[in-house]
């Protein structure tokens, strides 16, 4: 790809997304495209297939695939290449499979349409790929519908779908981003194995450095639609040249000294919780939170960590068990709690957008909380809002802005300020950095740490990300399938020996070392701790 320029449409104006980019990929090579959201990674990946999303257009440059120019050939010709010689694996497998058709029918569709092989042969081929990708029951899994298969399995089915026609190039667009770490590692391993064995060229798009380090032979760092730096993986990891690349690499250095002192602010005892009176999602959960400290609740999706937050806030009264706050029992349901208690427990959500009323100005949002809970009005209220904006490092002029005029990180700051506006004792942070880019997330974490130091506020920090936990926690609670697997101080939990599940979780977190994946798999094959659980999944 030479001199590629792509524009996107916003309302009636076109603005550049890719500003003149070159990309070269050799047969059998895996190229990693890395960058933050909005860097143009996906757009570039799709352009490699001669495809632009609705509302985007390729305005300049040439795309040569095996000697053919994808830009100048007619659409009908491009269509014959897609799925046959160039295939795509999307981020969310659950959304990218048609809910109305069986998996196997979707897998063989391209082969059938373009007569690449007979349907029977394509089916056989697909089942063979299912087997190679270590899917359970490869003969029959294709007969299922997408909703009947788990996320990690679907992602592998999609990889198989991409490979059925034996393409020369596969574009992987964040294929494991939506998965839990313990699932991610298996999908990564399967993809890596198949790509290598079948000698495919691939473009691997991700925002996760550690993942790209495992998958790519060569890495290209993108920012604002331009190439920042390009180098073979090992050199890129050990010796980045550009300041931006260095800053990306440096991200994982945030550290906090642990301190587990402090009297109990929150004490959860033997809580059992269920939704709609049916399925139990929390089984006998007990957690203590010391005042002025950070307790990180770690677990994968479905482990019950967000449900725990709902129990504490009173949104979901527990079936049994008790929650004690500041030495006194907390009424189970929200409606039973007095206003003074509501003030003391605040919550910050993963997605700042749905949490902020798009029609309200920032100053109003903060001011309302201040007036409602602290009774401040007029000048006092204005002063408090200024203090809060100052605390989250935003200029006073932001009080007149609407949420849509803020960036993702700034919106999350406003959410933090709103929680802190009422001087709470406990702030529950539910995956507050998961939706943010690494560098922005880092700044948010720094802000949270600084505020804790200044105000002595207590955090219950819910996350699936071990790196974040290492950065900010004093104590860690590991949850799995609605139970507390292990809890204790950060050092206790993070130093071996671990409980089996903790071991699996920790060892599944990708590291920057390009040999990490192979080493972990070799280790697990030998049958280390956690291997048993990994086998079950």
């Amino acid at each position: 790809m030479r001199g590629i320029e792509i524009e996107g449409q916003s309302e009636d104006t076109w603005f550049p997304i890719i500003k003149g980019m070159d990309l070269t990929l050799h047969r059998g090579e895996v190229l990693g495209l890395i960058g933050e959201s909005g860097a143009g990674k996906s757009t570039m990946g799709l352009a490699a297939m001669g495809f632009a999303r609705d509302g985007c257009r390729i305005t300049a440059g040439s795309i040569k695939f095996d000697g053919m120019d994808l830009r100048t050939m007619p659409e009908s010709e491009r269509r014959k290449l897609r799925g046959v010689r160039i295939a795509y694996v999307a981020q969310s497998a659950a959304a990218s499979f048609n809910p109305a058709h069986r998996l196997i029918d979707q897998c063989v569709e391209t082969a059938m349409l373009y007569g690449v092989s007979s349907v029977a042969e394509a089916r056989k081929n697909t089942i063979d790929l299912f087997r190679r990708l270590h899917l359970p029951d490869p003969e029959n899994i294709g007969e299922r519908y997408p909703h009947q298969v788990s996320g990690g399995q679907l992602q592998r089915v999609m990889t198989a779908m991409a490979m059925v026609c034996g393409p020369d190039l596969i574009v992987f667009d964040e294929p494991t981003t939506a998965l839990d770490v313990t699932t991610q590692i298996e999908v990564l391993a399967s993809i890596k194995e198949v790509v290598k064995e079948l000698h495919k060229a691939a473009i691997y798009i991700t925002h996760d450095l550690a993942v790209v380090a495992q998958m790519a032979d060569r890495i290209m760092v993108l920012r604002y639609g331009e190439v920042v730096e390009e180098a073979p993986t090992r050199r890129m990891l050990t010796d980045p040249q550009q300041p931006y690349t260095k800053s990306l690499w440096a991200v994982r250095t945030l550290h906090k000294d642990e301190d587990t002192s402090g009297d109990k602010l929150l004490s959860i005892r033997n809580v059992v919780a269920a939704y709609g009176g049916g399925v139990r999602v929390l089984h006998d959960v007990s957690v203590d939170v010391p005042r002025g400290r950070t307790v990180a609740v770690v677990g994968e999706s479905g482990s019950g960590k967000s449900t725990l937050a709902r129990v504490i806030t009173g949104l979901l009264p527990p079936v049994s068990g008790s929650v004690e706050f500041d030495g006194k029992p907390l009424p189970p349901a929200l409606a039973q709690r007095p206003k003074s208690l509501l003030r003391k427990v605040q919550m910050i959500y993963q997605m700042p957008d749905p949490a902020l009323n798009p029609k309200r100005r920032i100053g109003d949002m903060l001011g309302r909380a201040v007036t409602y809970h602290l009774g401040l009005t007029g000048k006092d209220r204005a002063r408090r809002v200024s203090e809060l904006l100052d605390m989250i490092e935003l200029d006073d002029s932001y009080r007149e802005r609407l949420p849509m005029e803020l960036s993702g990180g700034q919106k999350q700051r406003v959410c933090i300020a709103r929680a802190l506006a009422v001087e709470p004792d406990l702030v529950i942070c539910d995956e507050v950095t998961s939706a943010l880019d690494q560098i922005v997330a880092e700044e948010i974490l720094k802000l949270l740490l600084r505020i804790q130091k200044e105000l002595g506020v207590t955090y219950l920090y819910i996350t699936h990300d071990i790196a974040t936990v290492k950065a900010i926690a004093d104590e860690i609670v590991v949850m799995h399938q609605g139970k507390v697997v292990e809890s204790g101080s950060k050092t206790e939990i993070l130093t071996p020996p671990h409980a089996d599940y903790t071991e699996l979780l920790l060892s599944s977190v990708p590291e920057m070392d390009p040999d990490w994946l192979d080493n972990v798999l070799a280790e697990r094959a030998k049958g280390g701790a956690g291997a048993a659980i990994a086998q079950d999944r």
Partner: protein
Amino acid sequence: MHPIFKTSLQRLALGIATLWVVSVLVFGMFEMLPGNFAQAVLGQSATPEIVASFEKRAGLDQPFLTRYGTWLVGAVQGDFGVSYNSLMNTGGQPRTVSSIIGTRLENTLFLAVAVAIVAVPLALGIGLLAALYRNSIFDRVANAATLTSISFPEFFVGYILMLFLAVQHPWFYATAKVDSLTTFSEHIARIGLPVICLVLVIVAHMMRMTRAAIINLLASPFIEMARLKGVPPSRVIWHHALPNAWAPIATVVALNLAYLVVGVVVVEVVFNYPGIGQLMVDAVQSRDIPVVQACAIIFAAVYILLNLSADIVGIVTNPRLLHPR
């Protein structure tokens, strides 16, 4: 039992319950009307003796619950009582409501089916094509044309059609008068203009909904995936989008088909077609309450039945319900 079957049965039971509530409302409503029924039907000049004798024959001297019970038992078996009009002249033979409504309902259903056979495929076809070629000339013309046709009042469209297609160019019958002697082919020929008129009225809604449902789906990741698999546009619409769009389309089709039964009175009057809509209007004018009640129940049943069918289509085309985990 398959969950779909179970859900469908539940919906059916709910529909029957709704129908029962409607029957209570319809029956109770007339009870609550002020004044004396018999007096109103017979007119100011009727003597108390005549009123009493009428009340006795019509069963109006019975208490409310008894009358409702008798009526309900009959209605379940298709017997909606006796027309008040036929009771007025003492010498005449009383006519049952069912015999009065029977042919009228048949006529209305005949017209409705004829319109549906033309309008539904037409609307879906135009909707799909408009989605496939969206923002093209075809899309714009289709949108503008259907919007125009739905914006004119039915009677206006009816008279215009009559003027051009029956008077100036005598291709169709100007009126749709049919009776028991009309043959099937004659019947079809007679209703040409009302069919065209109603098609123009209902196509817009269904077509626009089809288009919107498909276009809404075209933004889904699985459609992008299909395009990246090299699937041609027509197959993307037909094979990937449409199977996921049946639920909203079925809902709007059901609503429009219901309209064909319960809302066609204007068209019936314009073309002088002996359907159930006209009958109900006449019955209201002459205070023939049993006929009005029966019409109301039939209309409610049509609505409930069609919405039930739309629900079932929605369930059957949802693989999550059809193939549980």
